[in-house]
């Protein structure tokens, strides 16, 4: 699995100068630094990486390593103390919120819906950046919502209140909302956490499909090292706010690196086939902290 060459997105051609856009990185961070007020040490310190258009890019790291903060900085929910962020070739600061939301969709980690809402209503919110406060939904908007529901296998539950969905269905619903945005860049914060095996594989498979054949750039934060290894083109491993490694799964998921960052002995094996991802490194944590060295 390599980063692959820049692809032209489904919708990329219509929006502005195509030549310039396909060459520019979809997302780029340069020396990103951030410290929460009154925090003893910076949450992020000198993080630099680029995500090519059409790439599936995974951000890994232990709890508190700065993954979610990095995501907020990339999306402008927090302002960086140092360094800069470029989105689709432009400095983050030059984007308006709505303009950004038309091209970058986000599935946040947590949402606490305060009032009853149907699945379809929730997914239709993905069209808001395209509609603004006033414009009524057109046939194109309804089609985008319908397709997003169908892709996430939610058409049958479209009229149900979101409060009656299972955790997996709700997560698919939030993903469907992001798909209804028809974004060029899709950012997800731990989308598969607490999901069962099937939902997890479905979501990763869908992301792979979006990133590969369809040219959507996907950046996802995840704790799932093995799924990231199988599905992502490249990975970034954070350790206490600094980047421990960037590169292909084989480069990042090395035993020494993982043991140092997570502080736990692991074994790295290769995924047996069959399948396109055969040979991807798989990390297994050993049962006890002080495992005999010869096992590794």
């Amino acid at each position, binding site marked *: 699995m390599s980063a692959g060459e820049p692809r032209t997105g489904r919708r990329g051609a219509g929006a502005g100068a195509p030549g310039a856009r396909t060459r520019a990185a979809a997302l780029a961070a340069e020396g990103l630094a951030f410290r929460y007020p009154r925090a003893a040490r910076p949450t992020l310190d000198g993080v630099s990486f680029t995500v090519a258009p059409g790439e599936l890019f995974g951000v890994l790291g232990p709890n508190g390593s700065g993954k979610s903060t990095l995501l907020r900085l990339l999306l402008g929910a927090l302002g960086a103390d140092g360094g800069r962020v470029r989105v689709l070739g432009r400095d983050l600061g030059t984007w308006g919120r709505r303009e950004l939301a038309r091209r*970058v969709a986000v599935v946040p980690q947590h949402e606490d819906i305060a009032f009853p809402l149907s699945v379809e209503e929730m997914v239709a919110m993905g069209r808001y950046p395209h509609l603004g406060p006033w414009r009524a939904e057109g046939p194109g908007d309804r089609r985008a919502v319908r397709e997003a529901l169908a*892709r*996430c296998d939610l058409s049958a539950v479209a009229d149900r209140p979101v409060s009656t969905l299972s955790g997996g269905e709700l997560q698919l619903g939030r993903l469907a909302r992001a798909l209804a945005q028809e974004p060029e860049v899709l950012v997800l914060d731990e989308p598969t956490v607490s999901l069962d095996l099937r939902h997890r594989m479905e979501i990763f498979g869908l992301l792979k499909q979006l990133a590969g054949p369809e040219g959507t750039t996907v950046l996802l934060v995840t704790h799932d090292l093995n799924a990231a290894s199988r599905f992502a083109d490249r990975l970034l491993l954070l350790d206490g706010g600094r980047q421990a490694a960037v590169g292909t799964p084989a480069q990042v998921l090395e035993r020494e690196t993982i043991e140092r960052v997570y502080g736990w002995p692991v074994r790295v094996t290769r995924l047996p086939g069959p*399948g396109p*991802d055969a040979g991807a490194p798989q990390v297994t944590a050993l049962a006890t902290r002080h495992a005999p060295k010869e096992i590794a």
Partner: protein
Amino acid sequence: MPENEPFEGGVGCGASRRPPPSPAGTGLRGEEPLSDSATSDPASAAPARRAPRPVLRLALLVLALAACVGLAVLVGAASISPGRVLAVLAGGGDPAARGIVLGLRLPRAVQGALVGGGLAVAGAAFQALLRNPLAEPYVLGVSGGAALGAVAALVLGWSAAGVWSLPVAAFCGALLAVGAVLAVAARSSLALDTRVLLLAGVVAGAFFNALIMLLLSLGRAEAFRSAIYWMMGSLSGAGWTETWILALYVLPCAAVLLALARPLNLLAVGEETALYLGTRVEGTKRIVYVATSLLVAATVSAAGAIGFVGLIVPHAVRLAWGSDHRLLMPASLLAGGAFLVLADTAARTVAAPAELPVGVVTALVGVPLFVTLLVRESGRGGGLG
């Protein structure tokens, strides 16, 4: 801790509860986006069929509001036959009937519609802003501030300065409360945290109540009585001038809030989500807060502190028709207006010739109504929307 799943890939999604188990590397509907849109095209009739429903519902509410205003004009302490009232409305009628219908009942009904609609819209907006179905204008200290201003005017004798002094004092009190609550919330956190806003509002309300009690215990007895009556809310002072001035505040503020229906939908889901879906969250929250506060200040200075309308009406609309603010906001405006006109008609007639404070009626009628809706809804297994 990395999860132990090295062999998932080979197994695939063995259980075939769903269409083709997706092998690694393809989507749920792998290669068929084209057939997707082709097969679902006939279904485009469904949203089209559903589209007129909100309009029908709003039209229904317009009729209900008109009916309530009609009833309010027909009944009252003085018995005027429906025929005479209709003659007045048609432009004729005898002078006595004209005086009562056009000079007293109609402005009072219009003012009731404005106050009720304004309070209900403000309540719906506050509930979305604070992501809390129990929020209402009163919780944020706005009405406490307005009440303090009005009571100060009554007790300290400023009301002798002219008919304008009491509403103006109430308005200033409300703005003072808004400013204080906003300042506290802004000082305590980087962004406008809704929990801090709620707490600051509750604390400010308690403080204003204490000041009101202090003023009342020091004031004269007749000031005490009119202050209490005013605090319970009443539309008895409504003339055309007051009504027009109230409309000047209520209608633009309500229009601003109605226009923010989509951002309110997003804020109700979550502030981070709203940001990522293109909303300037802090700016929107400020606009909503200022517009609702102006709205409440205007209604409280016109009619006193009328409770429950801002809580019950949006809640009832939400239970019946869901939480899309594009329907919820205008529906709350109309239903709130109808509800308060009806409540005021009852307040005028139930114990005639005596008049009850309309705030008492809204509470007495509203609470059982609210409980009924709540129990019926939870009995259905929470199937809302």
